[in-house]
């Protein structure tokens, strides 16, 4: 029985909805990082004094969470449903296999450390 790491790039304004959605399927722990990035949306134009200037990388959040294999599908489903607006810029979810996990406080490894 393994675990997976879910790395999700989401809209900044969707953080609380995503947090509550994954908590609803029993996943509490996560790490959030402020990042900049771009996808098919590319950059955007912002107002300058006269005319505009281009911003090529948009602010996003990167969520990292680790789940048991059995919880993966419902976690991904909850996360993507909560993060979705249907417009370009909703983000991506990357899923990795994990080797091992260590809980720093107790030294527990593997399953109990999730």
């Amino acid at each position, binding site marked *: 029985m393994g675990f997976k790491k879910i790395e999700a790039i989401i809209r900044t304004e969707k953080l609380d909805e995503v947090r509550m959605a994954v908590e609803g399927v029993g996943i509490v722990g996560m790490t959030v990082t402020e990042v900049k990035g771009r996808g098919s949306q590319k*950059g955007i134009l912002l*107002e*300058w*004094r*006269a*005319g505009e*200037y*281009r*911003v*090529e990388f948009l602010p996003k959040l990167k969520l990292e969470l680790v789940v048991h294999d059995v919880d993966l599908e419902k976690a991904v489903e909850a996360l993507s449903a909560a993060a979705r607006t249907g417009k370009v810029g909703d983000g991506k979810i990357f899923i990795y296999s994990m080797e091992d996990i260590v809980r720093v406080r107790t030294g527990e490894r593997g399953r109990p450390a999730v």
Partner: protein
Amino acid sequence: MINSGDTAWVLISTALVILMTPALAFFYAGMVRRKNVLSTIMLSVAILALISVQWVLFGYTLAFGPDHAGLFGGLNWLGLNGVGQTPYPGYAATIPHLAFMVFQLAFAVITPALITGAFVERINFPGFLLFTLLWSTFIYDPVAHWVWGIGGWLRNLGALDFAGGTVVHITAGVSALALALIIGRRKGYGKFPMEPSNIPFTILGAFLLWFGWFGFNGGSALSSGGLATSALVVTNTAAAAAALTWMLMSWIHKRPSVLGLATGAVVGLVAITPASGYVSPLSALVIGAVAAVVSYYSILIRVKSGLDDSLDVFACHGMGGITGALLTGVFADKAINSAGANGLLFGNPQQLLIQAIAVLVVAVFSFTVSYILGRVIDAVFSLRARSEEEEIGLDITQHGEAAYS
């Protein structure tokens, strides 16, 4: 005879105008990239220190000392020798001569600071310091003498410049154009996006400029009565009209931009500066609105030209100053200030011609001398930071400091 009310107002105005230079530092710093925020602030605040010393030692006497041929002041007041607590009635009969001197100091400080917007993010600091010292000595001081000094040739010609449309904004704006040409574009300009570091800094700076401008224009009455009040009212009115006009233009373009509104406010303040002691509030509305349109399109044309006058000093101060100086010749009204003159609308088309001569002469002089000074200093000391310094950012490479952790 010293009047305490007049003196108090001029001293407070001096403090207000001194505040405008750090305000300008933040106005500019918000529009540059994160790696050049401290460098941009440094350019303005270093000028505050440098020119405060220059003015006391020899700047004041070059500008306002006893006249030589209408062109510059003599060295009689070197080191403020003879400039004391009693009034010098030729300039201001009811305040100490020292009060007039220090009020003028604040103007001598902010003028070269305006130019820095043309060369931010790539300037070599030592070359910049030398340029500033020579610019103040060979451009600001003589032009201040021509327009404001007793015996100055433009003053004798009848040119109206209440608070520095010509002396401050045209000299700075046109010199910025010369410097932008000499120093060249920032690396990657037009190719890579250049994101402003902190627009709220810029907005804060703009509205502190608005606040300080009450001293700039109101204090230029050199007394605390009706004329100062009138100047203060038209200053606020022109700033507001220009801010609204700019907001509308940005709205028509896309959205009502706060950076646009703030830029408009500054342009309105620039344009009302020469006119502020001579025009009515309704004229100020027109001056502000017209200047906003002129500067807005000047920025668009500048961008199209490919010239990297990075913070549009020419478009805002040069074009705003020229607009204001010319419109002073249209809207000036002796009913507002009997010591002034009537403009075109009040039956004196001659005044517009005089204003145009002053604009042209000061613009050509400022551009030419700035260009020569810039070229010489660039050849000897380099005005431009080294390529890798510019890439890494001037905060770290020129000043050894970081704005943000």
